[in-house]
């Protein structure tokens, strides 16, 4: 997915969240882990980008990138979640642009999947045994993913605000 794909949150809601008790979730993969962020907070999805590293920044900050004249700070989800870095030969990371505190941030994920409509009731609280680092940034776990190969997998809901609370 090279080109920029703009997501219209309103459209996303209409198609993916017909019932009031469902929420539209953009899925993404980080080191094999399926994660989700609410579609309503997503502003853009970008393919491979030139990212300028920022010296002395927290390690989670991958750098700055240019989104149509706006500077967006990129946060590497692998580092944020304490996961090993991407293999050098792996395809470049994708950026999910979200808003936090009036600023734009890009969350770097290995790949970006579909938008799912999931019942809010299906969101289970974080298991108490979850890694403290993850517990901090996870808003809960979806387990009843409908359809296909995902049926067996768990989806971690990311709390974007907490993810961006670095330092």
């Amino acid at each position, binding site marked *: 997915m090279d080109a920029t794909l703009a997501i219209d949150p309103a459209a996303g809601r209409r198609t993916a969240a017909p019932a009031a008790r469902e929420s539209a979730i953009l899925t993404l993969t980080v080191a094999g882990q399926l994660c989700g962020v609410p579609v309503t907070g997503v502003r853009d999805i970008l393919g491979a980008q030139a990212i*300028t590293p920022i*010296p002395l920044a927290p390690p989670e*900050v991958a750098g700055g990138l240019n989104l149509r004249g706006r500077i967006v700070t990129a946060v590497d989800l692998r580092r944020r979640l304490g996961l090993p870095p991407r293999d050098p030969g792996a395809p470049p990371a994708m950026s999910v642009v979200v808003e936090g505190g009036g600023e734009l941030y890009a969350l770097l994920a290995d790949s970006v999947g579909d938008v799912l409509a999931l019942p809010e009731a299906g969101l289970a609280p974080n298991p108490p045994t979850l890694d403290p680092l993850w517990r901090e940034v996870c808003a809960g776990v979806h387990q009843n993913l409908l359809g296909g190969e995902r049926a067996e997998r768990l989806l971690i809901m990311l709390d974007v605000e907490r993810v961006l609370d*670095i330092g």
Partner: protein
Amino acid sequence: MDDLIADFLTETGEGLAGLDSALLRLERHPEDSRTIGEIFRLIHTIKGTCGFLGLSRLERVAHAGENVLGRYRDGSLPVTSGGVSLILRVVDRVREIMAGLEATGSEPAGDDSAVIRELDAVFAGDGVVAGEAPEAEVAAEAPARARPRRRKAAAAVAVPEPVVAAEAVAPMEAVASPAAVSAPDAVTEAAPVAAKRAPGRRAPARAAAVRAEVRAEVRADGAVTEAPAPVAAAGSLEPVAAPAGEAVAVAQTLRVNVDVLESLMTLVSELVLTRNQLLQLARAREDSALNGPLQRLSQITSELQEGVMKTRMQPIGHAWKGLPRLVRDLSHELGKRIELVMRGAETELDRQVLEMIRDPLTHMVRNSGDHGLEGPAARREAGKPEMGRITLDAYHEGGHIIIEVGDDGRGLAVERIRAKALSQGLATEAELAGMGERDIQRFIFRAGFSTAAAVTSVSGRGVGMDVVKTNVERIGGTIDLRSAEGRGTTFLIKIPLTLAIVAALIVEAGGERFAIPQIGVVELVRAGDGVMHIKDAPVLRLRDRLLPLVSLSRILRLEDRPDAEGGGFVVVTQVGPNLFGIIVDRVFDTEEIVVKPVAPILRHVTMFSGNTILGDGSVIMILDPNGIARATGVGAEHAQADGRAAAVSGAAATEKMSLLLFRAGAGAPRAVPLGLVARLEDLPAERIEISHGQPVVQYRGALMPLVPIGEGWMPPGAGGRQAVLVFNDGGRALGLAVEEILDVVEEGLRIESGQERPGYLGTAVIAGRATEVIDCAWWLRQAGEDWFGAGRPADARRPRLLVVEDSAFFRNMLVPALGAAGFEVVAVASGAQALRLREAGEVFDAIVSDIEMPDLDGLGLARAARDGGAWQGTPLLALTSHADAAAVRRSHEAGFDRHVAKFDRDALLEALRGCLAPGIAQSGTAE
């Protein structure tokens, strides 16, 4: 309603908008000290401002609220849900009063005693807030709260909706009609605009929206009559019309909505970026057909940018408008007589910067009045005029604007700050001991630091200079202070003229590109053989100056290219008075960049002032020379003082003198002015004896102590020889044992970096090498405390000398030498400073002055002294290195009694003895 109240309402409205959520956040996280601080400061500001505006009801409520918040802040009272409700009620009450104020121009009547009583009870410590009652009350007040909040929202809309604009313009017409009688031109201009912009729905004008939007300004005969348009409810029009009967002058101004200017600015910024991008593409293609139009486009873009920037420039006087009133009220409240002097009010700067500097300035003036100035009685006692003075000064300096806020009050009590810093755990005793006076004074910029003994209603709760500092730094500025106990304090704020577009040098280090704002760049030097190391610190010899260097890749912890240091470049940068070099690997072009702030999660990285997008579309970080200087210690206290001294002596041509170079211990060669050395000796080892553990030699019939210079001295072995520098004083002698005498050179001496190392004055470039200059006085003292003291009659009154000498080095040489010869010495650095001493009533037996000095030179000082006043008859001695006949004549004509070659200590002492001996004519000459 006057301007101040209108401003107060706008500003406080903005602050209150965020307060509810902050309070709710506090309720969730009662330990969050940042939130507490934020809430406290806002309430504090409201309280403070109210006091000056005479809004007593608001002030009382805010004060009671602040008391409670103060206890939350210092942790002596736990934050409870009930407490938060109580503070929320305070906020509601403030809103309610403000709404009334907005509508009628004065505080509405009402009784706040219930809330205040509850607050006081909590403050007093019983902490019990009735659970039910207040909750109910909050509910009851809810509708009242909701209304003003909606209004605030309307006022806070940054980009006005068309409807808001229409509302805003409507009263403009109304305003225009009465003015039309006297100001036909201006009005016919304005009216159609208004009509055009308000075609559709015309809602009843809402005061809040109106106030934020429109202000009418009518220029008449150059004088500006300015008034907020319909300030209160629509219909109160009286202040707007031009003075009746006066013809309206031709100069016309049109008030433009700030948002329009803002969006223009953004567009121009984008245009500049696009232009840069185009230029870069064109350069790569060498398509000559494009070049012509592109040049033109580039030119027009630059002019447009300049024009738009100009529309945003405002005289700083705008930010000072409220201050005279504030000072007046302050003076009443505090019972002090205060005079406010404002200079440079016409100095222009970007309005965005202006807005951000307004509050800090107000705060600082308030501080100066409250803490800085003493009461009238104390001033009389200190021999000062009863009327205290607060001075505001603004001027441009190299792309920056400098604002000085000064007072002639009591100055900062260093001892008290030291004690306070210690008691608050901000520094340890050992750290404090190693700090310069100014470093200690700078503690007042730390959060929560306040030295006001009493908590006054004006200030003094530790909300203070830290907030000012944060605000100044947020806009890329710096703040510093200078203070002398008993004589006053001056704060210096340096801020950029604009935040938007700057020229920057693009450099590369460690494989990454960075932008350095050109403002601070003095020059660009190829780093070659000039880079030397003193221990691990790289320095660059640049035109006989030693420049401290910092490696960019090292401070940014980037991969260091081993070969880069030799082959790279040095960007010579100035921060305040300090010069330093930044080592980079490569230097590219300069580019106009649009400064964009960095994301909040990166704010703590002080090395960067922002980021931007280059012509090729890549993101690049903008370096902050201030941050680099701070991080590397370049701006540390002693270096700063020294840099200034070096700059000053740089102005006066460097005077040449004979210097003796020698080697002692490891490292750089050492130097001492030859004039101080009596003789050089090369003694055979056998003559060195040890007496009381100290090496001595028999020398000309007396015992001369030997002081080894340099570490680990050993007496030379049998048959060896010892090089000794002999210093003489009266009949006594002292020898400095050195390893090897190298050379005598004739050179200008400029000491560059003053290390805090006993025995050394600093480092200078001598004969092309970094050389350490020794502090003779210190070494001589090593021979024993009584070295200079012996032979002086203890009871004799010591003659008092004033030494006026701009070079710190010469002062350092002269003062101990003269002191040792039995004089009490006061030293100052310029003629102007000397005259200040005269004004202060100081009396001296003789004055020794340098001729060449900045500000007021020696000749000027002599003329001023002879012109009358207390120093008319004081003997004046000139010190100079230019001993030709014409110079001597000039100094005689100016009023000097004697003329002594610099650095001839014996001649100086002789001349002084001649001057001071009674009955000797004052016209004698000693060369």
